[in-house]
């Protein structure tokens, strides 16, 4: 399969990238790792006339804790996240999400920014970022702005980025003491998108839940926050009964459609099962002392 022809640019500064975006507008497409975009172009489902490759733009590969947040540059590769001791220790949910993106070879080029900006409801990171209440940092001709992940994810393949803006960083709030996160995905086989997946984050205060984040992958037009389930958990001990009820509420929050991954009602059931698993895992991490 052969992609249609296009002009290629590899800007070496953000200002150059932004001016290219302005110049070519809707005819152009930004490329991060290209692991979703290039197959789409080969299948001729995407045919940008101008391809702007971000790999030479400096400053997009940050991975550090700064100002109360884990700051991840948009061009940080999945494999880097997967193997980072810092992320592994303090943000296990992000590692678990990275580990199930496509397959290990694809992850060597795929990026977090690409995964989020593609806004595919089947992608794994958006739900994890919802659960962790991350902030997206974008740069455009009008300067830099922060967007909460809830506002960032608009619809299938649609973010709130303006056509002339670039996603540059993802800020994940540092976990409070006694916090834990987890991402649990059920896929038909390795490399597949999720039948459903659940991202969970909890912060414990003694034996009750002080804060909770719960979000769902591939069971709606975009990654979904399970708001009622989150709310239900606050102030409760995370016993079996509570977790089951939260799972039921998370299942209700799903908006699945029937397809080759199964009937809608089945996917809702999987959301329930995975919610329970993700919450148990996150709670264990929260109370196990490992944040």
């Amino acid at each position, binding site marked *: 399969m052969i992609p249609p022809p296009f002009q290629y640019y590899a800007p070496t500064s953000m200002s150059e990238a932004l001016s290219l975006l302005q110049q070519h507008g809707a005819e152009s497409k930004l490329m991060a790792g290209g692991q979703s975009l290039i197959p789409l172009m080969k299948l001729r489902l995407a045919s940008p006339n101008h391809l702007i490759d971000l790999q030479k733009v400096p400053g997009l590969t940050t991975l550090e804790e700064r100002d109360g947040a884990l700051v991840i540059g948009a061009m940080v590769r999945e494999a880097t996240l997967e193997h980072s001791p810092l992320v592994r220790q303090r943000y296990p949910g992000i590692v678990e999400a990275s580990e199930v993106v496509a397959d290990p070879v694809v992850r060597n080029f795929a990026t977090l920014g690409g995964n989020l900006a593609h806004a595919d409801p089947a992608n794994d990171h958006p739900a994890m970022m919802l659960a962790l209440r991350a902030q997206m940092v974008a740069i455009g001709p009008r300067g830099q702005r922060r967007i909460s992940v809830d506002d960032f994810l608009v619809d299938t393949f649609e973010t709130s980025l303006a056509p002339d803006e670039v996603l540059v960083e993802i800020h994940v709030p540092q976990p409070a003491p006694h916090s834990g996160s987890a991402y649990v995905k059920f896929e038909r086989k390795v490399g597949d998108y999720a039948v459903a997946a659940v991202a969970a984050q909890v912060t414990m205060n003694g034996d009750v839940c002080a804060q909770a984040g719960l979000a769902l992958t591939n069971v709606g037009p975009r990654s979904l926050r399970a708001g009622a389930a989150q709310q239900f958990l606050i102030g409760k001990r995370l016993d079996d009964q509570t977790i089951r009820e939260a799972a039921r509420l998370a299942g209700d929050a799903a908006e699945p459609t029937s397809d080759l991954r199964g009937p809608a009602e089945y996917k809702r059931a*999987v959301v329930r099962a995975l919610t329970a698993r993700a919450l148990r895992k996150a709670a264990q991490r929260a109370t196990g002392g490992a944040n």
Partner: protein
Amino acid sequence: MATDVGGYGRSVKRKEDPRFIRGKGNYVDDLKLPGMLYMDIVRSPYAHAKITSIDASKALALPGVLAVITGKDLDAYKLAWMPTLMSDTQMVLPIDRVVYQAQEVAAVIATERYIAADGVALVEVDYEPLPPVVDPYKALDPSSPLVRPDHADKNTNHIWHWESGDKARTDQLFNEAEVVVKEHMYLPRIHVSSIETCGCVASFDRVSGKLTVWMTTQAPHAIRTVFSLVTAASAVGQIPEHKIRIISPDIGGGFGGKVPVYPGYVIATAASVLTGHPVKWIEDRSENLQADSFARDYHMDVELAGKRDGTITALRVKTLADHGSADAAANPSKFPAGLFNVCTGSYAMEAAHVEVDGVYTNKPPGGVAYRCSFRVTEAVHAIERIVDRMAQELKVDPAALRMKNFIPPEKFPYKSPTGWEYDSGNYAGALKLAMEKIGYADLRREQAEKRARGELMGIGICTFTEIVGAGPSNTFDILGIKMFDSAEIRVHPTGSAIVRIGVQSQGQGHETTFAQIVAEELGLPVDNIVVEHGDTDTAPYGLGTYASRSTPTAGAATAMAARKIREKAKAIAAHLLEASPDDIEWGNYQFQVKGAPTRSKTMADVAFAAYTNHPQGMEAGLEAVDYYDPPNLTFPFGAYICIVDIDRGTGEVKIRRFLAVDDCGNIINPMIVEGQIHGGLTMGMAPALLEAITYDENGNIQQGTFMDYLLPTSMETPAWETDKTCTPSPHHPFGAKGVGESATVGAPPAIANAVVDALSHLGVTHLDIPITPWKVHKILEEHGLAEV
């Protein structure tokens, strides 16, 4: 005795590997010829439509595009249609109508691969959609649209009816039966998806008139004959067979999908003849998945009759076979449903009756194998599932029911109720070994304990009998060509040899195993023997590699050719040893004088003499050819046990262990046999749990890429366990049976039986494959077992 000679039973490292591990294989797409053009294909978005116009002007205006070929162009040369291997017809390119989605509509010939692809995007085709025929049952309704109105003699989508066995006696046994069990089973469409897709480079030399086609084919000789016959009927005029050379180079997996003649091969060949340039055509994966031949698609009603004491008395099967838009299977011509009537399996029963009806639908043509010998997978699935169903009905252990009904070893050769003569078998021996090795009794105890706790595990057994090695010339032919196979051996003066065979490897390791046969039969070192195949200019005529037939047919031919050489060599040895040929015996891989084994000559000694010092009156040289017509088929078998655990949250089936005990008779290379079994098991697991091709109500394929057609990775595939018993074939020259497909045939029912076993206490009696998580989860929910 001669040192380092011989070959049987040795895990010789593969002779083909040194090139593969260096990236020096020679696959079709690796070939580049001077002046070579590239072909890419415009395909139909509709399953059924009238073509109202094809406008190629924009494509032709693209620099580098040299031609756009349509069905009308081919029709002018009488090449728009071609015969299938089942004597049906199939469009090469349509003149005015498409009959399946992704059907070839036009071909763009260009100087570059990328330009050809751009040209395809510029060809404008207008379609008028027609109502598609998707469901094979509805296809038989007299009001259904016709898929093949070109068959003027037919006013129906029904292709053929075929039956086998004794209907009257079977019906009578069913009427008298104490117990009857029945299930409807659907084996879905699946696709072999070898990692290399199909393709060719066709090169017609206008000066010599010679056509050379490098092609991803499992059967180069048959293709050569078909090409010659097709051109004879065309306006191009016959290309005589000696001016056609089909070369099947290294093939990146075949599994049956590279047996048929695909339109792309024919169009590329026509393009080369018309342009005088070599033309390369390589499918991409979507084309391969959407348009190439598929396997299975059998809707089976299976019934088994028996007595309360567990004695099986009769089997009755009615099947609807969805063949898509053409009957383009590669079955022997007398067997439209292949060898499906071997479905009485490993069990002695009095009678059986099998009916199959072939149906046209608006889907790609075919009904090829998926690593199986002519519908044996379907047969084994039917019997192995229904035997389990009977055990469930009678509340007896499925192993015990099998043991009670196995054809006992002393009954071989065994004449089956549908007419096959099984050569040899010891089914109870294989099952006993499998049960001991896996710890069957302990596993049943574990299962009972788990069930009491609400946990779900299942134990599945399959004790299959295969039927391979097609086949005897009195019954087996493809397009009239008898299904013998061949070998030619030349022993060189210094004791090395070249072997050329009529079959063709797609990864099975023929260059190694056939060298081992010659090494064994002639007492030469394996290293001194080279095996060539796949080139019709040099190899003797053969029907090719599929249906696990290489070892039973060409392997036998190789041994027989070697024995012819040995016979002549014996006379030369006698001459060298100054003894009478009657006093010479073959032993310890050498010729020795009876009673005086120190007086001996090696084959190398004899070979040198054959060219330097041969007896007066004898022809010089040492070579032979053999065309082997097998007296019967061979019947490999096995006992497989699969252990599954079920995730009550997701419904996922996890294979915890899978043990395969295989019996393929005598083994040439145990390492290669084990590798074949590992691969076969994986291709058996795939359709049991993951792979299926489905269509929506408009005939749109729903699995057009590897994102939805789910080939198992290393993570889904368990660590296969294997063992073996050995029951040689009594009629094969060295007692071998063939093994390439056994595991693909045996694994699916073992897995299906394990899952049904895990759920049997809930009243579940059958699940169609692929057993998806949601099918299982639905059952768990119905019984309050789904976990949150």
